[in-house]
């Protein structure tokens, strides 16, 4: 169990904890909301990294698990009056189930074909949910404001969802590190490097890939419930926004795929940058900088892909040998 003493693990965990707990200690609601956005992004990126970074399967459909989980949780709360924690688990379980069902089929596809299939899955589920009456079809599911009463009012409910997202992101980091340093993780990484060679060495690739997909899907399923519960409603277009999947991919690329710290740093950096750009008052000529936030994000991303494809953490590990012992 010596892997639990690795400084890289503790560094990552500390970053997430520090980020997560700052609003709790200052009781600052503004920080809490920013924290929620960032921790949500971190958990999405860390979970996507399991299938993408460790296993090498690039999924453009990670948001399908977020959306479907969110819908399931909202359905449980709205129709069955389920308490939030149960709904969160229900959302996670449903997404995991979808991943299990899909995994065996679409994980046979490799490379870009798999990426395309995941886009297809997301769109298929989105358009299906827009027709699915129990989930409200196009109007989605709405919660009564009184729902928050059982958690002590809206303010407490928002704090509760925030504690939830802290718990999930901490769990995500521990779980991701556990996988990375486990025998199962070694199998996944051998699949990433050379799937055929991995099979020959005895890695039962269909099972390993499916399990990785399931693990990867469970977390966004839970996150979706928290987010939509907090918002009080869910609609198909919000739940299955392809752009969110792609943003998660970008975060992983920024930080460094296949590393533990990378997705955390990538998500943090990306969300901070977007947050700053969105709320900045600076001007470019006569136009506000805000108008160019998409352009700036795009340029930054292009530069990273072209010049430091391994991402920040990957690049640091390549460049500075001593950092390999500190960063994982």
């Amino acid at each position: 169990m010596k892997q639990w003493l690795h400084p890289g693990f503790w560094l990552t965990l500390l970053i997430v904890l520090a980020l997560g707990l700052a609003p709790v200690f200052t009781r600052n609601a503004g920080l809490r909301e920013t924290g929620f956005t960032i921790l949500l992004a971190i958990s999405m990126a860390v979970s996507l990294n399991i299938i993408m970074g460790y296993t090498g399967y690039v999924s453009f459909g990670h948001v399908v698990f977020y959306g479907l989980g969110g819908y399931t949780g909202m359905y449980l709360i709205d129709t069955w009056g389920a308490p939030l924690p149960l709904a969160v688990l229900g959302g996670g379980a449903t997404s995991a189930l979808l991943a299990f069902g899909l995994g065996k089929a679409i994980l046979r596809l490799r490379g870009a074909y798999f990426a395309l299939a995941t886009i297809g899955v997301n769109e298929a589920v989105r358009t299906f949910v827009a027709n699915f009456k129990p989930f409200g079809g196009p109007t989605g599911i709405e919660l009564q404001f009184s729902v928050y009463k059982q958690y002590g009012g809206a303010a407490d409910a928002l704090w509760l969802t925030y504690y939830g997202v802290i718990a999930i992101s901490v769990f995500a980091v521990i779980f991701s590190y556990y996988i990375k340093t486990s025998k199962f993780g070694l199998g996944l990484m051998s699949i990433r490097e050379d799937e055929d060679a991995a099979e020959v060495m005895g890695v039962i690739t269909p099972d390993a890939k499916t399990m990785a997909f399931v693990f990867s899907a469970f977390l966004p399923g839970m996150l979706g419930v928290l987010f939509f519960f907090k918002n009080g409603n869910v609609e198909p277009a919000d739940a299955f926004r392809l752009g969110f999947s792609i943003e998660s991919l970008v975060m992983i690329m920024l930080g460094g795929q296949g590393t533990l710290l990378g997705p955390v740093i990538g998500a943090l950096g990306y969300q901070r940058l977007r947050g700053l750009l969105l709320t900045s008052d600076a001007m470019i000529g006569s136009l506000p900088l805000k108008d160019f936030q998409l352009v700036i994000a795009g340029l930054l991303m292009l530069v990273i892909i072209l010049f430091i494809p391994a991402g920040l953490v990957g690049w640091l590990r390549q460049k500075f040998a001593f950092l390999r012992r500190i960063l994982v």
Partner: protein
Amino acid sequence: MKRSLFNLFAVLVILSLALAACGAPAVEEAPAAEAPAAAATEAPAAEEAPAAAVEKTAIVGFTASLTGKLNVESTRQNNGFKLWMDQVNAAGGVPLADGTVVKFDSKFYDDESNKDRVQELYTKLVTEDNADFLISPYSSGLADASAVIAEQYGKIMVTTGAASDSTYQKGYTLVYQAYTPASAYLTGSLDLLANADAAAKKIAIVHENDKFSTDVVTALEAYAIEKGYEVVLNEGYDSGTTDFAPIINKIPADVDAIMGGGHFADGQQFAKALSDKGVAAKFISLLVAPPEPTFAEIGDAAFGIVGPSQWEPLAAFAPDYGPTGAEFIEAYKAAFGEEPSYHAAGGYAAGLILQKGIETAGSLDVEAVKAAIDSEDMMTFFGHIKFDTSAENHGLQVGHSMVYVQWQKDASGALVKQVVWPLEGKTAETVYPIK
């Protein structure tokens, strides 16, 4: 010895500099803090001089969809709100009971037309930008998310463009709707149709498959059935659809009226496609798009299309509060160089609702302003404004009603918008049948 003295000296210098640096703001603040007291003691001496009113700035916060699919509607609404703010401030602000005067300032962020950051941005508006009042984002879904924050922080929020009735049935107490709710968007066009042609019986409903449009047509269908119409088709289309041919082909040839639509882009495209396909309906009424001035860009395809509007420049109400329609239009044109649409008027009306509430309450206290807005019952250039105050539907707009416009041709053959319903506000007869 000398050396240590020098060191001591140096340390003292640094220390005193540091202290000065820390102390500086304190020194400056002290007189400022005492100023009111000083003013108070001096006041009797300067009794004749007009008392310089103490000014307060109330910040109104909102998010707008600067980018993304809701950009058009949102921009106009912003313009309208900004016009209101500039005018109130130019007129000297709103006086309160304690003699202070409130001026307004706004703070807004881009929500990119999606929900991801709405709550974060509204929390930031409330906690960091110290917004006193809130305006909702455009669209019901985003408004719902922001309402949770408004309620949590006890801030009054006026919604514009958040039409769905369900938002006001969720138990909020501080959210007020400026617009006629979704359930009443298209029901009026059925009344209009009945008036134009008692024999019309068959209606086809084609609508965007999203929350707002579905809410509208659900109410429409129920109303139509109640009135004895036959709904021969009720079909949705995906948001972002541009090719309407498949759905138009499903509309039976003998249909009397086509109703539905969704938002601006798809509504405009749908109207264009109906014309391109030579559909022979006698009456077409679509959501959102027809009242927009730019709807006429599709040329003759716009002819005869009816649309519900929250407000029309031509519909002259006699306001008992705020500017007249003509004054608003003139000011808006001067400021933005274009005809105001109902979104623009809605933005202005949202400002009026706040202004009236603050004036009546004579304070910025939320409970007092809430009570004042609850009791608002006024006629503005935008129309009648009054809110449901029951627990089940608190904040739902019950005073305001839609006007229906139709694109017609003037003597020179140019497309013009005419108000055709309600009859008391009409500026022209309904063209019927249009084909």
